[in-house]
């Protein structure tokens, strides 16, 4: 049985209560840095992904509902380069609003990795200033990347669709 079939069955059953949940819901195990893994039975409610060939990394956002009616949010950061290690952050919440609030407060700037060698004290001030500017630009870019993806996620979640009006060009 394919994984897609598993997900479809679980979601259909989730609409009818928790009894079926206990029987068929798949088990997820999400590793977290600095914390114990999040292990739960449940279904994936939503996914958003920003894969872009010309960028070195992309995000994947997942929202799950557990069989005990909690909500799990996971933010994964993937790198094109095999030299970089992918990372994942995940949290669980009692309500959907709490989970969505966590997503909207996520700061992608913290995902930017500093390439400056802190042991190298020989850099002139001008070079340090240039590196600081470059770092700030990368932080801004990461935040814009994630905010754009999250805006798409919330737009798809919203059932009221209002197209952007086309005024006189």
């Amino acid at each position: 049985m394919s994984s897609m079939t598993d997900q479809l069955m679980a979601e259909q059953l989730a609409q009818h209560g928790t009894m079926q949940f206990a029987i068929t819901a798949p088990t997820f195990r999400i590793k977290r840095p600095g914390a114990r893994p999040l292990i739960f039975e449940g279904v994936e409610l939503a996914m958003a992904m920003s894969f872009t060939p010309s960028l070195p990394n992309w995000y994947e956002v997942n929202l799950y509902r557990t069989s005990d009616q909690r909500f799990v949010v996971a933010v994964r950061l993937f790198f094109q380069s095999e030299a970089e290690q992918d990372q994942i952050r995940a949290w669980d919440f009692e309500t959907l609003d709490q989970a969505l609030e966590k997503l909207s407060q996520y700061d992608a700037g913290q995902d930017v990795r500093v390439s400056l060698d802190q042991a190298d004290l020989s850099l002139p001030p001008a070079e340090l200033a240039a590196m600081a500017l470059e770092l700030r630009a990368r932080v801004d870019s990461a935040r814009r990347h994630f905010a754009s993806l999250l805006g798409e996620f919330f737009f798809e979640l919203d059932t009221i669709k209002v197209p952007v009006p086309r005024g006189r060009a």
Partner: protein
Amino acid sequence: MAPEREINVDVHISDTLKKMYDGAPRAPHPSAQTALPLSTLPPRDWQQLSLRRDGKPPIRFVGTLLFARSCIMQSLKGHAKQSLSIYLAIEGTVYAGLAFEPSEACPAWSSYRCAPLHAPTDLAELFRDWCPEANFFPAPLSAHCGTGPPAARSAFNAMAADWLTLSVLQG
């Protein structure tokens, strides 16, 4: 041949989540608390609106479109549409929305902003913070030859100037 797709944003929302999200009670946007009394507004074609914004859930309100302008920026790799729209909410709040929508071949993120306008400076602040050129991927990666960001900025400036001029002329 179709242009190479620069961005492959993919979103899947289950029907279960849509029902849960739609059924949840939501507090009105804080901006509505300083609105005008309903009786001061003339009758209009009110409808349920939802203004999209980056990184946050859309702002929902019942209102009507007052004004819209758009422009298209063309670069060596694709194009992007920018638009400005002004809405009146039924309780009297005025909202402004800005959108940047790149074509599939354009190496840039889409971007949406909106804000309630309580004072003339609010619109100026929205315009000042709007940075279409920052939506483009870093130049060495996107290979847009540097034409996209300045073209996006100049297109937006021209659109905003056109609208502001029209607003002044029409009083």
